[in-house]
């Protein structure tokens, strides 16, 4: 909740800036190849993947994600240590340099969709909104593929 409150505050503070069109950076963010896997019911967390490209010439910082599908959406990073043990942890804010693409891909990072409000059904898609430090937002439709999908092509 704290997180939501903060995002709202940032959005409110930046509304005048938005209105004058002086937004720095996030309007140049392009989200491509978004996909997710179908879920079984709502008891387990879901995951979504995508490529986030900064086509502008200023660094942008991704600070949060929202979706009506899940009560809480967060980017998690997977790390695998020398013993081959994999663990995941919130990735925090992600800075994307100009011309850089961040791959939110299996085994690297995923958007963890926690407390699903409805099952993720193959063939549907859901909107996911990415929020940036400058107050800008990018909304992308994430297609839900089969449970055994391995990439945006299925």
């Amino acid at each position, binding site marked *: 909740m704290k997180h939501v409150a903060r995002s709202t505050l940032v959005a409110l503070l930046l509304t005048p800036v938005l209105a004058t069109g002086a937004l720095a950076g996030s309007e140049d963010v392009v989200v491509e190849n978004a996909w997710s896997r179908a879920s079984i019911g709502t008891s387990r967390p879901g995951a979504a993947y995508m490529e986030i490209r900064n086509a502008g010439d200023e660094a942008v910082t991704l600070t949060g994600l929202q979706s009506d599908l899940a009560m809480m959406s967060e980017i998690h990073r997977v790390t695998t240590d020398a013993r081959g043990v994999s663990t995941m942890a919130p990735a925090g804010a992600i800075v994307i340099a100009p011309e850089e693409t961040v791959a939110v891909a*299996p085994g690297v990072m995923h958007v963890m969709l926690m407390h699903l409000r409805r099952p993720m059904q193959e063939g549907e898609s859901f909107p996911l909104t990415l929020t940036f430090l400058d107050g800008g937002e990018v909304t992308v439709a994430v297609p839900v593929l089969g449970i*055994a999908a391995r990439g945006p092509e299925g």
Partner: protein
Amino acid sequence: MTVRTAGRILIGIAAFALVWLLLWADYRAAQVEKGGPGFQAAFELTDHQGMIRTQEDFAGRWMLVFFGFTNCPDVCPTTLAEVAAVMEGLGDDAARVQPLFISVDPERDTPSMLAEFVPRFDARLVGLTGTPEQIDRTADSFHIYYEKVEQAAAPGGYAIGHSSQLFLFGPDGAYVQSWSYGTPVAEILAGLKRQMPS
């Protein structure tokens, strides 16, 4: 026996225990690194249909074994999807390979939880779980690690860090090789075809 003598004996025992513990930890670490020659798949667990299964049930077939938990949103479904693709890619040879998904979350992963999750990826996959003690023993015998990681937003308040390799065992149950998480399916398939005489 004076108090002093008793104290010395106790200190002696403690020192001995410490040395033994250090040696044992060292030995375990070395075994994991080598994969351990002569290391045999050994387990007694319950499958997703509620049947007791041991390595004996799969004797004569190659076993592809990996560990995970059904509340895992990324690594486990990805590995399950990859193993499904490997089975697909094996064609007729798939009949000689048994893929096994072993839960490291005995508290949440009941056989019925596994039943609604594991076979969706490939009908040939068998999910295995057990009591916390059985899972501990299985992890020991496979030389793998797992540990609860607190995660407030996850169901039950925790996620599990775990060994994410895919292990291959021969028809005699002996360890053959492992692939680290993220190895492309084509590479796993090529490795399998090299290992399995046609």
